[in-house]
């Protein structure tokens, strides 16, 4: 489950990290790791960044580095910025919806009061029994 959630959100997190300034690959990886191991194989960020570039959401430039070979910096385009803005509002709606469902789930198991939820939670009721036959 976590890997699926991660896969769906990771590119948006990368774009969000670029909102303030251009960053290079390892810089992004470090931020994603500190935020909670959002990237399992760090090397897969480069195919992801390549895709974002092909989609026109980021642009790149090579810059000299003091620690070794030149680094490739990634910067948001206008489309990339729009994409982050759209995801930010969609994510809030999505998160609220999931939170609501998860909250109902917890209330259902802890609240045995009769009603719709209690009927749904009853697992001993024979499924095949016709309605009204009892």
């Amino acid at each position, binding site marked *: 489950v976590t890997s699926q959630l991660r896969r769906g959100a990771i590119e948006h997190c990368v774009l969000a990290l670029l909102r303030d300034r251009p960053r*290079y690959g390892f810089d992004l990886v470090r931020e994603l790791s500190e935020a909670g191991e959002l990237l399992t194989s760090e090397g897969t960020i*480069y195919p992801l960044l390549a895709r974002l570039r092909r989609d026109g959401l980021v642009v790149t430039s090579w810059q000299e580095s003091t*620690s070794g*070979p030149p680094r490739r910096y990634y910067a948001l385009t206008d489309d990339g910025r729009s994409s982050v803005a759209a995801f930010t509002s969609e994510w809030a709606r999505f998160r609220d919806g999931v939170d609501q469902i998860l909250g109902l789930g917890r209330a259902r198991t802890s609240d045995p009061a009769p009603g719709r939820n209690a009927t749904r939670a009853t697992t001993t009721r024979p499924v095949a029994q016709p309605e009204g036959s009892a």
Partner: protein
Amino acid sequence: MDTGTEHPVVAAYLAQLDAAGGDAGLSAGRRAELRAEIRAHVDDALAATAAPDAHDDTLVIGILDRLGPIEDIVAAEIGDVPRARPRKPVGDVDPAILAGHRSALPRPSTRSVILGIAVIALLLVVVGLVAGRGTRATTVAPVPVVATATPSPEAATPSG
């Protein structure tokens, strides 16, 4: 200063990445980009450690471990699909999608074209034969034939 990419394990990792990328159909240009980015990543990761030592096997292997299996990177390269495009208004169809649909339409093969022509030719011959018989029949026995085929009361009545 030594860099992490001079470590033989890193060199082997980059060579394997290049070979796997080639097998997967990545272009030479893209493979070169990947090598350059992974090389910079290793050096940045090494520089970020408390005691950078490009000859420290454990340190370098740890960096490669975090980079992940080569097949993961190559799979991410070839299995990508555009997902983070900005929203388009409804009805604004991406021409690339249309082009994709067009190219996805089945194209007739030479074999099926020849087969089709052969079937049509056979049908024409059969139709021609049937039409020929039909024409002869209609010339011999047009509408009046029906009348002559029905026995007239005179013909039906015995003359004697």
